[in-house]
């Protein structure tokens, strides 16, 4: 106990002396939250659009009007030829080209199908799919309106649509990206700082030669591991608190679930990430290796955990790899508590997974570190 206390005291003194790192640990969550919270938006609107309208008709203008009214297309360029449209899209000035043929209006008026060509720059698949689905929806809506009008003219009475699909987007009805992003960013920041800081912890002592001095003392392996983890649990909790406060104050993030539960599971996630960092530190020979290994963990965490891309769309193999990452479970927990307001009754599998993960990884670290250099 005396040994562990001395080790903790030492870690806190060193943390206090290293002002820059300490400042970064608190500053990073704020800056990243603001950056990502404001910048990232998966709902791609305001795509620059070039239009080549060969019909010069009311119908044509009405259709184009609904394109720009949707908010997804900004008609910035009027083309005079197909070449104009090509040039605009090739140069990247426009992401979307809308071409109405000369017989467009005639076809509409005579009840024939009027074709509209929509060219989409699919180099950016997210923007492209947003453009495609909106264009299709606009087309369908306009078609329906025209069909209903024609039916009215024929049968003389107003008919409703045969199907009426009513969509209720639960938990985040207004699709506020920040609500969805902030819990994710919190998990990402915690992963990054916790894994990286502890991955340095033991390897740094190894590089400075202080580990050799520790090895000749009666200090136990588990005491060393705990001494390296406990101080950063506090740092992690401070980071999480700061991040949540930024979320609430700047982005009006609702916390629908229990705050105590949220902190409890965050604590568990912090311990899981720290254990992973300690494991990396045990395997690394120098700080460079530790850094690279941390990134090796960090990138899959961001890409496979469901933070950036929905896990449902992943091939089985990668889906399963995602289940080895603490961030995957933490994201489900955070979104569950913050947005859905659910608790342990719904989240126990994730909480259990985090607990199992931490104990396994920590045990490996303690066993692997045999208080020997070679």
């Amino acid at each position, binding site marked *: 106990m*005396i*040994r562990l*206390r*001395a*080790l903790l*005291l*030492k870690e806190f*003194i*060193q943390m206090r*002396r*290293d002002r820059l790192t300490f400042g970064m640990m608190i500053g990073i969550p704020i800056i990243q939250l603001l950056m990502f919270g404001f910048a990232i938006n998966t709902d791609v609107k305001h795509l620059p659009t070039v239009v080549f309208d060969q019909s010069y008709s009311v119908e044509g203008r009405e259709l184009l009007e609904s394109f720009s009214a949707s908010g997804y297309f900004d008609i910035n360029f009027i083309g005079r030829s197909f070449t104009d449209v090509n040039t605009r899209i090739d140069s990247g000035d426009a992401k979307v080209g809308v071409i109405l043929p000369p017989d467009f209006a005639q076809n509409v008026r005579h009840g024939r199908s009027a074709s509209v060509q929509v060219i989409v720059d699919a180099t950016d698949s997210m923007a492209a799919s947003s453009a495609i689905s909106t264009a299709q929806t606009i087309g369908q809506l306009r078609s329906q309106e025209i069909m209903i009008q024609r039916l009215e003219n024929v049968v003389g009475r107003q008919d409703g649509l045969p199907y009426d699909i009513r969509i209720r987007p639960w938990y985040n009805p207004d699709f506020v990206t920040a609500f969805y992003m902030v819990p994710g960013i919190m998990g990402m920041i915690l992963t990054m700082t916790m894994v990286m800081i502890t991955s340095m912890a033991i390897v740094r002592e190894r590089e*400075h*030669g*202080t580990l*050799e*001095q*520790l*090895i*000749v*003392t*009666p*200090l136990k392996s588990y005491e060393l591991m705990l001494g390296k983890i406990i101080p950063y649990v506090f740092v992690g909790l401070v980071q999480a608190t700061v991040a949540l406060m930024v979320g609430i104050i700047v982005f009006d993030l609702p916390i629908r679930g229990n705050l105590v539960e949220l902190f409890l599971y965050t604590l568990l996630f912090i311990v899981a990430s720290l254990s992973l960092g300690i494991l990396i530190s045990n395997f690394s020979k120098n700080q460079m290796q530790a850094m690279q290994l941390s990134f090796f963990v960090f990138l899959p965490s961001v890409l496979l955990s469901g933070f950036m891309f929905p896990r449902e769309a992943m091939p089985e193999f990668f889906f399963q790899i995602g289940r080895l990452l603490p961030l995957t479970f933490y994201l489900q927990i955070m979104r569950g508590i913050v947005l859905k307001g659910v608790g342990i009754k719904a989240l126990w599998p994730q909480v259990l997974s985090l607990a199992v993960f931490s104990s396994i990884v920590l045990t490996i670290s303690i066993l692997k570190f045999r*208080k*020997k*250099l*070679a």
Partner: protein
Amino acid sequence: MWAVETNELTRTFGSFTAVDKVTLHIRPGGIYGFLGPNGSGKSTTIRMLCGIIEPSSGSGRVMGLDVATQSEAIKEKIGYMSQKFSLYDDLSVRENLEFFAGMYSLSKALKNERIDEMLRMAKLTGREDELTANLSGGWKQRLALGCSILHRPTILFLDEPTGGVDPKSRRMFWDIIYELSAQGTTVMVTTHFMDEAEHCDEIGFIFEGKLIASDTPSRLQKAIPGRLLQIGTSDPMEMMEELKRKQLPVLDAYAHGAAVHVRVNESELAAFEGYPFHIIQPSLEDVFVHYVKEKRQEVAA
């Protein structure tokens, strides 16, 4: 009981044998000097005894405890100071001492008493609150020594403790070692300074991983056959050529600073009448040269 005893202790790194079947015995209470050039296996031996690295084969006991199986029990009884400075640069002098006092679970009262004692001993009183990074070489080394003897170890292992330190600091350092030894601590110290070795009660020579001699300095000096002559010259190399050309009855000859050391049988001293020689007492360096050559001939034969 021996303070340290090893039996064919060996450590290999890949195909390189750093320590080759070293068998040595160290009496409790004395200062044992472990001498040899860089890379001869001094540090590796000490690191095995302290439980920092594992022996590849052979066995070793420290205070009767086995280094392979009881290294944690050994750690309670020993102090170790490595050749590389290994305290925390970003802690103050007192914080470093307190940290290591904590590592040895000293009680609060005992801790304060010992820390004050160490500060006095290392002549660091008044600089307690300075950051360790700001101390210069000699001070750092005395602090490191202080940290490694806070818990009053029975055996103290010092691995090249005075490397890169000025002569005055080296003397201060050795004064502390004498005092510890006088208080009954066994000290095992590696060095490549032959003058430091003369201070030791016993000396072991290690060369290319092998222990080539181990005894008291005076007995080692007496063990050299013949008499040692020192011949002053401005060109030692030329002088050695000359000795060879004239086929003088030389047992051994080698350059030593601005002189040549020549070992001859007592009966053949007359052959050197024409040279300005003195008969000198062999220094430990001469002893070392003798043993290394002997070992080489043994290996060649």
